């Protein structure tokens, strides 16, 4: 029996091809309307996906790659991803919603209550894709920090040191968010008329986080959300990001380019998990103590819309800038793409996240041809799983707050302090 994979769809503008917006099906003039996003996520839900991710950044596209560009022929502008997810939540039923929210300039306190609230409005379907803001354009929009002149050369030690700092800061940011999610125990709201108490004050906790970059006291203003700990998913390509994912995330999106690199990526992720001591925290649910769910990202252009995937790609490439990607680009029939996915399952991946070349063509095609093929091969379940997003990833669904666990553990330890 092959293992069952989770299936995610990554939503980005009109699609991941820079010319996607010019396809006949595309609706570029509706990219900023709610109807567009509701339909894309409903398509993904109908296709049988477990979750969608929604991309975001705090600067205009083009500028958010490492070099500023002044283009007029590609999609520019985007709406806030968290709010898109919240807007879509009541209009969908089952699918997980994983917006990108950045960590470098945003306040962890705001992120924490924002994602927790997405969890409330979606009834436990929320996730978070934390993302660093590395480029100067994002920093200039905030104007609070000095930003070095960066040369985007991987071997430049100054760049490496700077990026390492941003990862350290992101580690702290996610840690703070997770602690705030735990800062109310599940049953803190008691509504006890007899004692005139709405809350049990012992079940709210300051987090008293003091780090190198900032300190946050807590507790959160937002009570514990339906999942307690929404799913945290990180895109990573290298050692330091793998460590970031291994220490803070539940899910890591990786970009294997072929079978060999696929195996290597899994090994590198496992080594990173070892280095950060993730295994030592096994059995501690909700805060990166569980096995890391490793996902392979693929950009897909299926045979669809009356043209082969390869022809569609060639046509799109000829329109403007050719598609380049950090992730493997797969074109062709559902069977061909399913072969690739089967190989990833074989290699030991837990899931795939497909980045559709053109959302309005490839998402429906994924539902009509690819998912039935994956089901036929037993690679994904016959019927999409329901329940919380955590359940979808095989994570514990009953996650007590870490502070509840500490308090319970401390009951026998006389030295533990209490607030009573």
């Amino acid at each position: 029996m092959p293992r069952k994979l989770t299936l995610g769809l990554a939503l980005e503008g009109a699609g991941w091809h820079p010319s996607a917006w010019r396809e006949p099906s595309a609706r570029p003039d509706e990219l900023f309307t709610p109807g567009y996003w509701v339909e894309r996520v409903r398509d993904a839900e109908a296709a049988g996906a477990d979750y969608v991710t929604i991309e975001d950044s705090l600067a205009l596209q083009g500028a958010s790659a490492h070099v500023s560009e002044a283009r007029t022929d590609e999609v520019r502008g985007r709406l806030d991803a968290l709010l898109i997810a919240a807007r879509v939540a009541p209009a969908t039923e089952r699918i997980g919603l994983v917006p990108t929210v950045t960590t470098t300039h945003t306040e962890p306190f705001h992120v924490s209550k924002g994602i927790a609230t997405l969890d409330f409005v979606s009834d436990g379907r929320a996730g978070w894709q934390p993302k660093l803001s590395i480029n100067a354009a994002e920093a200039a929009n905030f104007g609070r920090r000095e930003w070095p002149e960066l040369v985007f050369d991987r071997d430049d030690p100054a760049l490496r040191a700077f990026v390492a700092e941003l990862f350290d800061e992101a580690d702290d940011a996610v840690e703070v968010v997770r602690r705030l999610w735990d800062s109310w125990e599940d049953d803190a709201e008691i509504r006890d008329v007899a004692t005139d108490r709405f809350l049990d004050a012992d079940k709210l906790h300051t987090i008293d986080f003091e780090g190198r970059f900032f300190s946050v006291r807590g507790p959160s203003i937002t009570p514990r959300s339906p999942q307690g700990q929404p799913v945290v998913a990180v895109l990573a390509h290298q050692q330091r990001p793998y460590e970031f994912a291994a220490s803070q995330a539940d899910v890591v999106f990786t970009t294997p380019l072929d079978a060999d690199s696929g195996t290597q990526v899994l090994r590198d992720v496992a080594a990173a998990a070892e280095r950060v001591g993730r295994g030592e925290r096994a059995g501690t649910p909700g805060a990166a103590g569980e096995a890391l769910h490793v996902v392979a990202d693929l950009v897909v252009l299926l045979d669809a819309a009356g043209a082969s995937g390869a022809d569609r790609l060639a046509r799109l490439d000829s329109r403007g800038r050719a598609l380049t990607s950090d992730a493997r680009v797969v074109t062709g029939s559902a069977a061909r793409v399913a072969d690739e996915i089967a190989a990833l399952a074989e290699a030991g991946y837990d899931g795939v996240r497909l980045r559709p070349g053109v959302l309005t063509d490839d998402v429906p095609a994924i539902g009509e041809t690819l998912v039935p093929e994956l089901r036929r091969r037993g690679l994904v379940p016959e019927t999409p799983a329901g329940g919380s997003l955590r359940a979808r990833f095989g994570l514990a669904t009953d996650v007590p707050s870490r502070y509840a666990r500490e308090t319970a553990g401390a009951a026998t330890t006389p030295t533990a302090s209490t607030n009573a």
Partner: protein
Amino acid sequence: MSTTPRKRMILATAIIGVNEHTLWEHPDAGSQTAFSSFRHVAQTAERGMFDYFFLAEGLAIRERARRPFDHDIAGRPDTLPVLAALAAVTEHIGLVGTLNATFNEPYELARQLATLDHLSGGRAGWNVVTSFDAFTGQNFRRGGFLPHSQRYERAEEMVATVQKLWDSWADDDLVADKDSGVFVRDANAGAYEHHSSQFDIRGQFTVPRSPQGRPVIVQAGVSPRGRDFAASSADVIFSPFLKLEQAQPFHADMNARAVAHGRGEGALKILPSANFAIGDTEAEARDKARHIIEQQLSPRAIQVRFEQVWNRDLSGYDLDGPVPEIEAETSPDAPQIIQGRALIHSDRAATVREWQQLAREKNLTLRQLAHEVIATPLDFVGTPSQVAERMDDFVQANGSDGFVVSPEVVPAGIDEFVDRVIPILQERGAVRTEYEGTTLRDNLGLQVPARVPARAR
């Protein structure tokens, strides 16, 4: 018959969230965090043709002696995602969120509000608040980084900067023409620059011009500085004045200030928060009102609210005993026993002396004193037609331009108002029977402000 045209009453409703007014002990009380509660109130208000649904905000759990308040409603979901989700289940009603100018950055806030405006088809509004304490700052990277005096400076610059960002895309910058391959007319669409004492930022904004151009600005804060700020840049004022003798001069003052800022008569709408108790008879309504106040003044609520003014631990005093003859703790280094709740009385020592004096004269216990000085009497108490008539008269007398109706019971408290008072107000011609337009600005009768281009073409 009067010849002046009848003013239409603007109506908003709110889930205030964390507060001491909401009756969680009430048998009909529901969750104040579940989405179903927000949906119920917003949809019911929309059925009643309300102008907007409103959320208050606070960014720290209230504390007494470093422990969370446990007797009042506490805990709230995040404002913006709640409003975005409500946009999915409503069609006409405005969605206004309170968002702090001190603990947010303009680029992010402008982006979120412009997104909400797009996602709601032009129904977004922002109630600009400045926060009243540094305590909240402990939850943020930079801490409680601004003294009160600079918070309005920041708030003013915040609004100006956010508006500049909203104006950074021209209406026709988004072309999206597949054939010619032109997505944006100008590679510089969204370019802006802002340098002031609070913000030193530049770049390009990611959100094309939203349906309202600029979401509606609401402001709450009534100090002279707050008034001038509101008069220059707000569309709506959330005011605390519901006594005609205070409300009329406030209305007149604010309108005069707005005109002095070069704005047209009626450009600024003033909405006090109002609550109500409705009965089949006036006596029944009075009973309800009395019951609401009794529940609000629970023993622990009374203690905490006195402690905030005294800034002393009063837990040792019997509520049914005499008012303590001790002074307020006013030394500047004394820690605040109550944190995260707005202090209404600026001169604590004087307030305490005044209350002690009153208690002596009237021979009041602490509990009785609370009913005299802390209880906020309900504003409109009576039969549905009495409530409708008094509200209408208040607006026609220029006490305000409407009300933020905030029921004590969440979520069902709004139902009675919509079912029983709205039809009478509609019969009187005091409120609408159909939404006039598609955006919040249209429905409030506000102009779309002219766009100020950030750059030469």
